[in-house]
């Protein structure tokens, strides 16, 4: 038998201890400023950390956030504000707790609360095709804020918002453009499902039957052979963005081991690498969902995926710290930060 020198054995034991202790060290590492930072499972490069800070500074800049606390160009302000707000929460900043971004976040929360107050609980832009999408995104943002700050006014707006989603579920199990139970499509359904799940996690009561019906609807949008998801059951193209959305919602609702989820993940992984390229259609929408799905899929998949998407996203950042894309500048900036910042895991929805 080969004899190992004692020093080599000691080095090996030390290495093992360091490896085992890495997660503990990684949490501490958040305060480190220099060099490569380990957060959770992924290595956040200095470029990614700088991009996130620059992006948040852009959003917090005077004139970028409007006086009423919103972000956006006027068309989808609720969606832009919701994503902008979540981008700050991602790094562990809490609305209203002072600090560098506390006021900025509190203003955004107030904007969403006021929106709900003025529209009998509805948070989206009325008569807008994206209205219900905005509503779901706002409920998601408020849920995350409620989970962190426990501001009573957030709770009131959140309960009213959740109530609207519950009442707008169609008999098919999904949701569509307007806050009424008329029809359903995958995109709207996933948004409401994620919002409901997040609200439930933050302590708001959501009937299990509602989630179960919605999950069934999401699964019905899957194309059996490829595992990809369509816009509606049995109709339309299978798409990367749709599949990312479908899979992410299934994972969030506890269906991680469901064969539909596994099949969907396989689809996402097998889909051509052009999905990582700049200018890929609905880039931010798709990757916002995809990164969360892959993050929940497991270490190996995440380590394969994250560096590719992080590199692309960082390269897309503009000089002023913002990102541009479909949905508006604040939407793209918020989504970009949420995509590359997944390892921070301060948002409850980002926790495995």
């Amino acid at each position, binding site marked *: 038998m080969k004899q190992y020198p004692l020093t080599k054995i000691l080095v090996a034991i030390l290495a093992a201890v360091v490896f085992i202790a890495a997660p503990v060290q990684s949490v501490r590492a958040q305060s480190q400023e220099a060099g490569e930072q380990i957060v959770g499972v992924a290595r956040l490069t200095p470029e990614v950390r700088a991009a996130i800070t620059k992006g948040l500074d852009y959003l917090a800049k005077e004139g970028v956030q409007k006086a009423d606390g919103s972000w956006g160009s006027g068309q989808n302000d609720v969606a832009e504000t919701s994503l902008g707000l979540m981008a700050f929460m991602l790094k562990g900043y809490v609305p209203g707790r002072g600090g560098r971004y506390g006021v900025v976040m509190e203003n955004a929360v107030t904007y969403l609360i006021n929106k709900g107050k003025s529209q009998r609980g509805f948070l989206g832009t009325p008569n807008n095709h994206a209205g219900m999408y905005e509503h779901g995104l706002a409920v998601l943002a408020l849920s995350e804020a409620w989970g962190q700050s426990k501001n009573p006014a957030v709770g009131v707006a959140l309960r009213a918002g959740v109530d609207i989603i519950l009442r707008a579920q169609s008999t098919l199990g999904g949701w569509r453009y307007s806050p009424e139970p008329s029809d359903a499509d995958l995109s709207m359904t996933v948004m409401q499902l994620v919002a409901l799940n997040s609200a439930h996690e933050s302590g708001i009561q959501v009937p299990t039957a509602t989630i179960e019906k919605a999950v069934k609807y999401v699964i019905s949008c899957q194309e059996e*052979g*490829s*595992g*990809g998801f369509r816009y509606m059951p049995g109709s339309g*193209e299978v798409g990367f963005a749709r599949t990312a959305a479908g899979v992410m919602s299934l994972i969030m609702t506890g269906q991680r081991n469901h064969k539909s989820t596994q*099949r969907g993940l396989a689809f996402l992984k097998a889909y*051509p690498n052009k999905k990582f390229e700049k200018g890929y*259609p609905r880039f931010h929408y798709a990757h916002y969902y995809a990164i969360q799905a892959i993050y929940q899929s497991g270490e190996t998949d995440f380590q394969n995926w994250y560096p590719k998407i992080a590199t692309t996203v960082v390269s897309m950042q503009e000089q002023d710290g913002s990102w541009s894309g479909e949905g508006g500048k604040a939407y793209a900036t918020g989504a970009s930060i949420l995509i590359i910042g997944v390892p921070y895991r301060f948002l409850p929805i980002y926790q495995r």
Partner: protein
Amino acid sequence: MSVKAQVLASGSFLLRHNFLMFPRLKLFLLAALLAGCTLSSAASAPAPLGTGRMLQQLESDDWILQAEALHYFAKYRVMDGARATRALLANEKASPWIRGRALVTLSALENKVVPAEFQKWMEHARPELRAAAAEVLEVGGGDQAAAWLQTLLKDKDDSVRYQAAAALARRSKEAAWAMVDSLTAEGTTGPARLAARTLAWTGTDAALQRLGALMAKPDQLSKCLQGIRDIPSSKLVPLILTASTRLPEGEERLHGLILTDLQNRDKKDLVTGLGKFIEAGGDQNIRTAARIITLLVPAPELGVLLRTALTKATDTRTIEAGMIALGIPAIEPVRHVEYFTQQLGHADPAIRALAIRCLAHCEGLNLFEILKPKMADENVPVVSAALGALLRSPPANAPRGTLVTYLKAPLSSTDNTVRTLANDVLAHAGSSEDYKPALATLASLLRGRDDDLRASAAKALGQLAPSGEIGDLVSMQGYLPKWTIIGTFLNDDKNSGFKEVFPPEKAIDFDAKYQSKFVWAGVQGGVEGSDSKPIEREIAWSKVNVDQADGRLLMAANLPPPGSLSIGYAVSDVTVDKAREVMLTIDGDDGFRVWVNGAVIGEQMAVPDPKTRRTVATMPGVKVQLKQGSNRFFVKSSNITGPWWVRIRVADAEGNPVDFRAPKP
């Protein structure tokens, strides 16, 4: 003076005054002329879209088409049709009846009667035209109408006299009774349509009583209904309902005419009439009312009256008709739950089954509780109805952990439909706690030879079983439960890959890895942003346990996506103690080739069924000799698009499954 006339007048003025000296004025004049035309057209409502076609119809020599056109002109007041209608009226070669219709239409369009001209039609040699003149006088004729009608009432022809009477009755109502009484007295024979119309317009009790008597004659009813169909009187509803009760069951045409008439009446009148009709009582009335409520006026207030009346009904046909009405959603069946529940004990099984169906339409009930006694009902349709209702009930209401005991009777029924439905209920509402008792009850079906019962039992057990137990269910049925698979290899929409020999076909090496190609094309509905360029990837063998209780090995779910335009291979090794012959049933979607111990034993490619669009290939009864020891089943499975799976059942010569599981210690 119309705008057009004014402009024309100004135009002639300008012509006289050399307007060509003023070119701008000329343009203005042209524009004004056009505007004048437009304005003059706009003065009346635009002609309906069908006018052109109707004008063509009027020129045909088919009186049905002509009559339709005339009706259209009158209904929509198509003034563009007046000229052609007048031409038809003047055409002596046309049938007198259609000319009469033209006269009525023309007077409706022009809304006036020119005495000199009208006199001609009143005195016309043909009674059809004189009768039409009388019809015009129902609403037209102004001050002279009464005098003209007096003349027509003395006409030698019945149809003219009766039409004149109807017109007078319409104009004078009750005051016309003396004349109407003598004209329609018993024993007189006149055209029933016009007699009914006359009596209906008169509207006195005596007149309506006489109308009722006339409608009681089945051979006159159709004509009577024609005569009264446009008379909007609430008093006519009871007469029509009574006439309906007197009709024999098989008189579908007359029943249809009655429904058509009632459908066009004021809904409020109909509800009131039906209410009184139900309250009058009697099986016949209740039955008639129930059918009309079902078809025409499902008003909740009528439902309450109907249910009260039904408690006194004795005829099962009445109870049946009543329950059908009470069960329709608009009647709010939940208001009548108590009545439906009472009927669960009715001696007639058809009523019991109907009561169950009605209860199934009531929201918020716990049918598992209400229908428990019906599980043991002696009648198959009753049990089937109960099981069908449970299938639509929320699973949360099912008894937890004791559903198999609840379904004991239907699960052991001798009727296959009942057993299948009971299995479906188990699948729908059972929980994991029901699995073991369900397996004990259904194991014999899984091992049985009846394909349908086996499939329904497997479906139920598959829903209840913990995921680790599915393999046992698969084996018990005789399906091969464990496979080692590899894919995908490239196929195309012509299934060319099925002919190509890929490496696993040359030698099976479970450690080998291969570079294979796949394409995104072929996914149903397409894949956004994809092209048909083949992409290369590495593939390897993997072990798979069948996770579908029906024994299907899902190729697409267990191989890398997309699964369309793909070829895959699957291997299953089984061991037998001694050599024996077995009978295989192989099926798959889309196609397969199967080798046993290296020899091809069959292949089949599915042809899409044009009706179901399913593409399942099936090869039943394939006899194969197995050798003692290990035997290898090797399958090449191909898919073009959609679902992709393969399945092999191994049975003995009698169809009993061969279970290859190692005996449990």
